[in-house]
């Protein structure tokens, strides 16, 4: 039951919604950027105009860059996110390959551990984890946070990779065997190249997850902050403008990667791919 007029209305509604969604997504980002550039006088003026308006300043950014706190935090965040990503892919890929070739019972275990690790309260889990890490001298170390992040991301990297490997028909490997290649040559020349896009997506998602992570870092850090901690640290002390500058710095690679990733996103990948 569709007519010409209804079709046009639908299209208008569609673009309106598209605009609304973009606005809702864009607005807090612009607001964040603006706060990092607003002068305190303007910000605390009762009848302030937030997004547009007078009172622009680079003071806060100069403060952030000059304080000597940015670079260690940036380095730590980059280091942890990158090491977590490499470790997660190296650990999850072989397991995921085996699971994708084995059967339903393993997949059930995986999906359950994925579900449980996602649904249990982080503040609850972080406490015994940090108590344990304390006795292993892992609190306030890079390794400690990497391990905590691995607990968090491993099930879902495994899940994305199982999906990726499952999409490779077994007959592809069998054809390679019949063509004369061994198990290892088949992995290297067929399975790995074909699953490369899925692995790349999984890696980028893990990297973002670790880059953004807040709760575990909060529990496991005493001295050197990561970027998200630094954001909260300033806010907690009323440094709202510096906090906004830090939040902006965190957001830049997220926007870049989102832009790259959105072309590769499929509903299936989101099965494990969406946080």
């Amino acid at each position, binding site marked *: 039951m569709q007519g010409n007029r209804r079709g046009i209305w639908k299209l208008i509604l569609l673009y309106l919604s598209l605009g609304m969604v973009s606005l809702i997504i864009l607005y807090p980002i612009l607001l964040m950027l603006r706060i990092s550039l607003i002068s305190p006088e303007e910000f605390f003026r009762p009848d302030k105009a937030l997004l547009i308006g007078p009172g622009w300043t680079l003071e806060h950014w100069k403060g952030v860059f000059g304080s000597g706190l940015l670079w260690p935090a940036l380095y730590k965040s980059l280091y942890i996110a990158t090491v977590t990503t490499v470790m997660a892919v190296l650990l999850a890929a072989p397991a995921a390959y085996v699971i994708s070739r084995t059967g339903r019972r393993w997949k059930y275990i995986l999906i359950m551990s994925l579900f449980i690790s996602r649904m249990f309260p982080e503040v609850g889990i972080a406490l015994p984890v940090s108590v344990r890490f304390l006795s292993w001298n892992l609190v306030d170390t890079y390794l400690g946070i990497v391990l905590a992040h691995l607990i968090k991301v491993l099930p879902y990297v495994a899940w994305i990779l199982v999906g990726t490997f499952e999409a490779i028909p077994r007959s592809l490997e069998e054809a*390679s065997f*019949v063509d004369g*290649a061994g198990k290892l040559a088949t992995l290297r020349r067929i399975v790995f190249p074909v699953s490369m896009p899925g692995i790349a997506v999984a890696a980028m998602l893990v990297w973002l997850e670790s880059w953004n992570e807040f709760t575990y870092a909060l529990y496991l850090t005493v001295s050197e902050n990561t970027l998200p901690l630094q954001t909260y640290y300033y806010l907690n002390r009323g440094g709202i403008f510096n906090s906004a500058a830090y939040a902006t710095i965190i957001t830049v690679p997220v926007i870049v990667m989102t832009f790259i990733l959105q072309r590769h996103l499929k509903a299936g990948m989101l099965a494990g791919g969406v946080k």
Partner: protein
Amino acid sequence: MARVLLQKIRKKYTNGFEAVHGIDLEVADGEFMVLVGPSGCAKSTTLRMVAGLEDISSGDLLIGERRVNDLSPSDRNIAMVFQDYALYPHMSVYENMAYGLRIRKYKREEIDRRVKKAAGILGLEEQLERKPKALSGGQRQRVAVGRAIVREPDVFLFDEPLSNLDAKLRVHMRAEIIRIQKALGTTMIYVTHDQVEAMTMGDRICVLNSGRIMQVAAPLELYDFPANRFVATFIGSPAMNIIRGQLKKDGNNLAFMNQTMKLTVPPGKSGFLESYNGKEIDLGLRPEHISIDMSGKAAADVVTGEVGIIELMGNEKIIHAVAGDTIICRTDPHCRAEKGRPAGMVFNMDKAHFFDPESGMNLTLG
């Protein structure tokens, strides 16, 4: 090129299920052998055991004079075409065909020569640089065949390679595959569930059921002289009519009779059936050997039944008539039989088969 010999090949799974019950089969050098059967008959499992993709539980598999049971697929010198083609999606058509040769470390010029030659045979010269996803279904099928022929293996194994193509392309590719196999003279084992494909392509056909061989024979022999009731009803569409009854002496001749019919067994067949006098037996007759007589006159070998389902195919009519059992006849499309009305069915008893009710064996083959 080599013969393939299966000797008491069995396949038993970890869970105790026995899929293949010790089958014996010889595929001659250069022969086109088709494995056909209903789903679950283990035809694919058998092929995969020959390929080395499934373990053989017991028995001997010989390719040429070599026992290959314990060789990996890569060492058996076979080539296989898969149902889903299994083309490597990240490689071009050329690389797909060259892969097996590269793995075996052939010289670059030799690889190029063979791939170009196969591409020529299959009409793929224009597609060599394309990726599989840029090809049509028929072209993908060709690439899969090309990947098999560049290897110049001892045996081709084809696992339902045409089931993903539409009807028209399927007819065309059947002819193409026959042509290539005859030209290369390579031994071929070809699995299909489609009986028309089996009859059209095979030099000989091996009919499988539940992991046992039912009959191995040339196509028309299978149709005209089925070894047992399974083959009789599996090959041919609509299936052969099977009617249960008793043999009784009637004057000099044997007669087949049950509650609704009495039919004379032709003298040529009587000889084989003497020992079944007074016993139960199954009569088998193909639909095209029963004609409809609407004159209403009772005569010898005419059975009267009530017309049930009528299927009109255009060039023929399939009539299901009930006379005790449902009997299916293939008639002229202008036959005036009407649903719910009686019709006389004339049984051409010269074409009849008789099967043992227990074993299902065809008793009239001699």
